[in-house]
């Protein structure tokens, strides 16, 4: 069995987000990069399902050379090999096209991604890859089990869940519940350095979207403190001042 896991290189969750060049560029100075937390869940599940010689896990990242520490981290966690498509990930459409193009002849039984990246929050890549490859895509899953030539997935829906069965191959985007992220052990860290990392060049496509500028949310005013002995004041304020109840 061959599994492909898409990983994205994102700012650490403690990063204070700031912008430069008149709010057109993300300020990456001093920012630590990590594997997108949802992608770690996808990776952990892929490794679990391939354990004991049942298969191999390949990770793929679309990024320039600066993302290699993140790729090595994925190898340390337990992926068998890696592919880096050598291009800045300019938008989801571009990234999905690169992944689909690399995956199309790879003979993967299934492909996993995280539900969304915590930087651009597109949640677009999985379903786009599915469409490019004409295979089923299931977005935002909480559970994944294989049963021979098909898989049973639990998908999140408003106020509940949906259980679906899909034939292989398919692509799914993973959320919490699918697996617990894995921490690399010493052996993993040592072997990560020598695991294969292939670098492939991107295919060109027409640009469909472009970030023009960023904005940080307007700061809130000073908090209004209400005495713990007088909570009815809060109810009054929410009703007559904030008008939310």
């Amino acid at each position, binding site marked *: 069995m061959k599994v492909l896991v898409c990983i994205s290189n994102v700012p650490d969750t403690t990063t204070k987000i700031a912008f430069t060049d008149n709010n057109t560029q993300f300020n990456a100075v001093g920012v630590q990069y990590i594997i997108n937390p949802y992608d770690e869940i996808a990776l952990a599940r892929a490794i679990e399902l391939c354990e004991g010689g049942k298969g191999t896990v390949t990770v793929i990242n679309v990024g320039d050379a600066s993302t290699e520490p993140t790729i090595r981290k994925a190898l340390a966690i337990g992926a068998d090999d890696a592919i880096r498509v050598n291009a800045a990930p300019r938008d989801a459409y571009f990234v*999905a096209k690169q992944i689909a193009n690399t995956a199309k002849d790879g003979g993967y039984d299934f492909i996993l991604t995280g539900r969304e990246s915590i930087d651009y929050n597109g949640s677009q890549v999985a*379903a786009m890859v599915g469409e490019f490859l004409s295979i089923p*895509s299931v977005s935002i899953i909480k559970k994944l089990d294989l049963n021979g030539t098909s898989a049973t997935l639990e998908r*999140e*829906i408003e*106020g509940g*869940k949906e259980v679906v069965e899909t034939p292989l191959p398919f692509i799914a985007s993973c959320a919490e519940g699918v697996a617990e992220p894995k921490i690399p052990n010493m052996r993993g860290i040592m072997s990560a350095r020598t695991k294969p990392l292939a670098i492939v060049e991107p295919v060109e496509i027409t640009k469909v979207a472009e970030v*023009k500028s960023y904005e940080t949310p307007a700061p809130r005013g000073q908090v209004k403190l209400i005495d713990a002995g007088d909570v009815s004041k809060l109810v009054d304020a929410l009703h007559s001042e904030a008008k939310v109840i």
Partner: protein
Amino acid sequence: MSVLVYVENAEGKFKKSTFEVVSYAKEIAKQLGTSLTALSIGNVADSALAELGKYGAQKVLSVSNDKLKSFVNQAYASIISSAAKAEGSKIIVLAASFSGKGLAPRIAVKLEAGLVDGAVELPELTGGKFIVKKNAFSGKAFAHVELTSEVKIISLVPNSYKVVEHPETATVTAFESTAAESDFGVMIKDIVRASDKISLPDAELVVSAGRGLKGPENWAMVEELANLLGAATACSKPVSDAGWRPHSEHVGQTGITVSPNLYIAIGISGAIQHLAGVSSSKVIVVINKDPEAPFFKVADYGIVGDAFEVVPQLIEAIKKFKEVA
């Protein structure tokens, strides 16, 4: 040339988020001087379809077919794409719901369209450009994204645009499914919906609690408060990690991003990852016994106090308020 809006239903009924996308799409159609066509897939009553006219739909295309009663991602994407082609629509709007997130990217590839997933405001249309504001960095920022493709797709975050009435007479016409046999590979085995619960991503009011509550046995007061207000319940990550609450309630950078009108945080410290998911809430109330809790810095109203005393009092105060109102 009309704007096309996909109107999602849950078990044959439209939700508020559907009326939000229709209102939003209508405003875009108005600004572009064109009409609005809605597309419904699944078994929705004609009367409910005609009611979309109230929010500005002039034409409603309806695909009613037992095979399409429940969401089939690939089939729905095929149908929406062919409806857009049939209508000559260059702009497609849908909700950034769980299904919408699966659909929009597939439609984008079929139509070679740029997609803004998770728009929070109307597009800026000055100078022939098309720029849409969306959440980025999990609520820590916004990005203004220009769509440069001929066909453009926007999915709208629930509760970020108001339902606006704009009465039109909507004509309802049947639309033939264009889905191929191969679009039905994924089969639905079971749908589990807690019908008595308000869904968190759509909720206008949210009552959320954290590790300060000490254990799952103490959630009764959180649920009582939520029920009284008609709010959804939510929690911080350690709470769902510990299994005190389901993962579907976890909000924050690695959980659900919410933008309700009111977010009440009880016994939550306000870590940066938690704040990311809730900072676009319109009004934030924080109840925490530690006056130094970082959450107070981003709150509109705060009560410094023990949740086990404050919350029961708050429940009583709201009961009184409801009696008078």
